């Protein structure tokens, strides 16, 4: 099937990632410069099984794990020119690609609504795919607007609310001060809050 490109799966490479960093850097370089398939086969033979172990541990599902391996190695093939050996080792670069893909995959699987993607957090493969979508923002009610609505309250209700919420008095103190029954203070407070609530609701 692959003429002249041995996969070398039968002879697992037992070296630690950091022990073959220079070699892998050189392979990445020739993939970047000449699309060298033999070099990519070396990288693939070394990293694909390792990525699969990592992905299985992280995702716990064979099919999803293989998808992660596929996407990661595909990025390595397509974007080898973005690898910079001065910034880090090949294993770190490839791990970060896998980590980013895993982060985005998990968020999709969990159906999370936050608009946060791995490119925001770790711009490793960034080719600036800025999303120009303009989100229309709901109009927000501000404290200032509450202040305006507050001024529209009937005077008697306003006085009670002012005393309680601005001066920090208790309802009993307000009752004593205004020489009105406690029950009246309570009902005025309740009415005022209800009114504000209605005004805010129609404002919405």
């Amino acid at each position, binding site marked *: *099937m*692959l003429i002249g490109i041995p*996969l070398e*799966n039968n002879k*697992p*490479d*037992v070296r*630690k*990632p*950091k022990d073959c960093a220079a070699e892998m850097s050189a392979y990445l370089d020739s993939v970047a410069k000449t699309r060298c398939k033999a070099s990519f086969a070396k990288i*693939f*033979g070394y*990293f*694909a*099984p*390792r990525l*699969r*172990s*990592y992905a299985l541990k992280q995702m716990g599902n064979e099919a999803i794990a293989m998808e992660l391996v*596929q996407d990661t190695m*595909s990025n390595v093939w*397509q*974007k080898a*020119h*973005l690898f910079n050996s001065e910034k*880090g080792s090949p294993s*770190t670069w*490839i*791990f*970060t690609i896998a*980590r980013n893909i*895993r982060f985005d995959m998990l968020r999709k699987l969990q159906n999370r*609504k*936050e*608009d946060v993607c*791995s490119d*925001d*957090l770790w*711009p490793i493969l*960034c*080719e*600036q795919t800025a*999303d120009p*979508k*303009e*989100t229309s*923002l709901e109009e*927000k*009610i*501000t*404290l*200032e607007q*509450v*202040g305006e609505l507050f001024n529209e309250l009937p005077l008697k209700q306003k006085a009670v609310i002012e005393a309680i*919420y*601005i001066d*920090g008095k208790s309802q009993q103190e307000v009752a004593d001060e205004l020489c009105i029954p406690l029950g009246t203070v309570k009902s005025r407070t309740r009415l005022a*809050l209800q009114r504000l*609530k209605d005004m*805010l609701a129609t404002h919405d």
Partner: protein
Amino acid sequence: MIKFHPTNEQLSQFADGLLGATEALMVSAHCDMCERCMAKVELYTDASAEIALPQSQDDDSVDFGSMMHNIMQEEPEEGIQLTPKSQIIELDGRTFEIPRTLTRYTKSMGNWSRLVGKLWQAPVDIGGETVANFIYMEKGGSVPEHTHRGSEMTLVINGEFSDGIADYDSGDFMIMDCNNQHTPSTNADEGCLVFSIVDKPLHFTSGWARLINPFSHLFFK
């Protein structure tokens, strides 16, 4: 000088991609501003790469041949790295440098509106259950004393403020929850711009601001 950093645990989880989205966003933005934490994250990432990609378990049943073959049929991309480092936003005649992580969100940022007194806010739509805002305090401005029903993450983008618990400076990152009651205010001449994410409405604990509490879910969205 930055005094408040994410914990080593948070930085390590961030490096591994295990933090929740909004927390990761805050930690990432902090790292944009803090070389020390950025360096730590790089160390944790290197270490994780060594640990995460050790020798694979032998499993001869997996056939990678066709996967490799298919990948090599794909066209390479020619793109170059074009990550903007930061972005400048303007408010009240002043300019502020927004850390790289948050630049995409400044595009969907809402208009600045005056909250109360010397406090301004511009909402940022990051979706989900949380609410994110840029908040700007003019000199002498303050947020009424409040506590939190959920958690509030804050990153100081530019300037200084105090909250009765500590003094904060550009780059400082903190998480407040229901155990923290505070009254942020600033006396810095240039005011203070922060980025804040809350997952539940604030609960105002004193003064006239308590008036807001019955309606806080409306403010919250």
